[in-house]
């Protein structure tokens, strides 16, 4: 959030590793000096192996051909003859492109609804005076302490009575605008100087024009935070799509992957390829945007 103490530009700066860094570098005081940088790099590498190794092992399995063992004493760390055949097989077992499309549709729709509806509500709460504002704000705040898991059975009943079981709209609806999105946008608008909007008002701009043309473009950073988190949440969600989707044709990617591992457990190579299909695009985007992402998280209000 603007004004919040976040991960600063300085702390997210990234540089390529240099071997010369092993020399005792002069560092800012306050760094927990366990030992020299050499030991620190060793620990960092060990942790990196622990946290990324499992992904790499999965990738290695996905690239091994049917002739190559994936367990037993002859298994090698790297595929002897890497093949993309397993990726093709995924599409034979499950309609994986369709699942990706379904997940993308829900995730993009969730980004749009959370950004737009969240911003509209946040704007009203931040900028307009009206009877009942306190009550609405309290209701939004209170909705944060209601875990979805507590109400899922009854959300399902509601979605069923709307006739939306087994539809992507039904998947989208419960997360279409979260209380958190509204709060983040409200905070962003509160931090904007009022003067620009007042100037626009004097020029005769209506409420919508002030919101759409003046205020919204000024909170792009917060919109990005809301957008990224809405996308990730919708893309990664499993419990609700598992509840609401019934026919395999309508599955999102997470439910489809689980389904794949159920139908085809005898070939781990194909399951591994499926998980890689799901995770590689996401990681590619993340690593491309990671500087922005970490700054966004810092601004996004995760602070102690």
């Amino acid at each position, binding site marked *: 959030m603007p004004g919040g*103490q976040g991960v600063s530009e300085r*702390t997210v700066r990234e540089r*390529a*590793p240099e071997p010369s*860094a092993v020399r005792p570098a002069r560092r*800012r*005081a*306050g*760094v*927990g000096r366990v030992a020299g*940088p050499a030991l620190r790099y060793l620990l*960092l590498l060990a942790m*990196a192996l622990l946290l990324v190794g*499992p992904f790499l*092992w*999965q990738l290695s*399995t996905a690239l091994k051909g049917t002739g190559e063992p994936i*367990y037993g004493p002859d298994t090698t760390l790297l595929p002897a003859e890497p093949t993309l055949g397993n990726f093709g097989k995924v599409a034979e077992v499950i309609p994986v492109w369709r699942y990706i499309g379904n997940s993308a549709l829900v995730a993009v729709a969730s980004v749009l609804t959370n950004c737009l*509806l969240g911003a509209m509500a946040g704007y009203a709460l931040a900028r*307009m*005076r*009206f009877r009942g504002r306190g009550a609405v704000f309290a*209701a939004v705040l209170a*909705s944060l*302490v*209601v*875990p979805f*898991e*507590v*109400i*899922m*059975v*009854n*959300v399902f009943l509601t979605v069923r009575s709307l006739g939306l079981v087994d539809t992507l709209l039904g998947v989208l*609806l419960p997360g279409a*605008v979260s*209380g958190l999105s*509204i709060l983040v946008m409200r905070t962003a608008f509160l931090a904007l100087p009022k003067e620009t*909007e007042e100037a626009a*008002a004097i020029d005769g701009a209506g409420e919508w024009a002030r*919101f759409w043309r003046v205020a919204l473009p000024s909170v792009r950073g917060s919109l990005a935070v809301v957008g990224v988190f809405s996308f990730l949440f919708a893309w*990664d*969600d*499993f419990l609700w799509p*598992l*509840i609401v989707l019934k026919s395999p044709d309508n599955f999102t990617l*997470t439910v489809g*992957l*689980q389904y794949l*591992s*159920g139908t085809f457990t005898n070939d*781990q190579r194909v399951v591994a390829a499926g*998980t890689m299909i*799901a995770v590689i695009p*996401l990681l590619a985007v*993340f690593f491309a945007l990671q500087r922005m992402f*970490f700054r966004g998280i810092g601004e996004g209000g*995760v*602070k*102690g």
Partner: protein
Amino acid sequence: MIGRRWYVPWLFLAPALLVTALMTWGPLANTGVLAFTDAQALGGGQFTGLDNFVRLADDTDFFRALGNTALYLVVVVPALVLLPLLLAQLVHAKLPGIGAFRAVFYTPVIASMVVVGLIWSWLLSSDGLVNAVLVKLRVVAEPLPFLTDATLLLFSCMLVTVWKGLGYYMVIYLAALSNVPGELHEAARVDGAGAVRRFRSVTVPTVRPTMLLVGTLAAISATKVFAEIYVMSSGTAGPGGQAKSIVYYIREVGLGVDGEIGYASAMSLTLFVGTLGLSVLALVLRRRSERNTA
């Protein structure tokens, strides 16, 4: 002078409020009402007073789920309070390439729990890499049933939860660590305090509010554990379904073919009281620690 016409704010609020009312407040109210009825998936629902709660007190499956969830909490919360702090300490340094390490440590957070669960199912299966290494090193004679023994399955799921959560809480701690004044560390070092001593006497006291926040977040998410168990057991919750968590059990009871909505609602309400209790506990602890430092 913004919002002269009284209905304008409500036009801005209407879509969001409609969704929240329909998808949060309505279902919550419904949960509160149906918990006291014998409602089934297909219609019905007579008021039955506290019958559901009496039945709950006698339901061994529910208590097993409760026990499993409690065990989850007891293991996962301390791990997720401490380990990400150490990890944040490790990457809270101005060293070349440190930003890349931070991003790398965050990757498990980005991947969905289903992907992570499937990756670890393969690693921990009886033919998997972990067992192969353990057998090779002669730590064990036979592969361990990480996924097919109910207790081991639960611990495997905890491992996955912690593994996936490390980067997430690390980022929260990083924001807090950047508030720790460097002079304090320097002064402690000059006074001859070792790394462990400085961690305990300088770092921990300054990030204690964040530890409380992380503990609360980790505890609330641990009480709702579901996907780990579902994916790692291929939807069976272990042999005889003995590794069910509360959410797992609620889903099974309330959303099965002949869902017992009333009974599931009573369980949901119990879960809600539990999560609220955790939040209140965190608030009390926070107040107390603020009073102590004030």
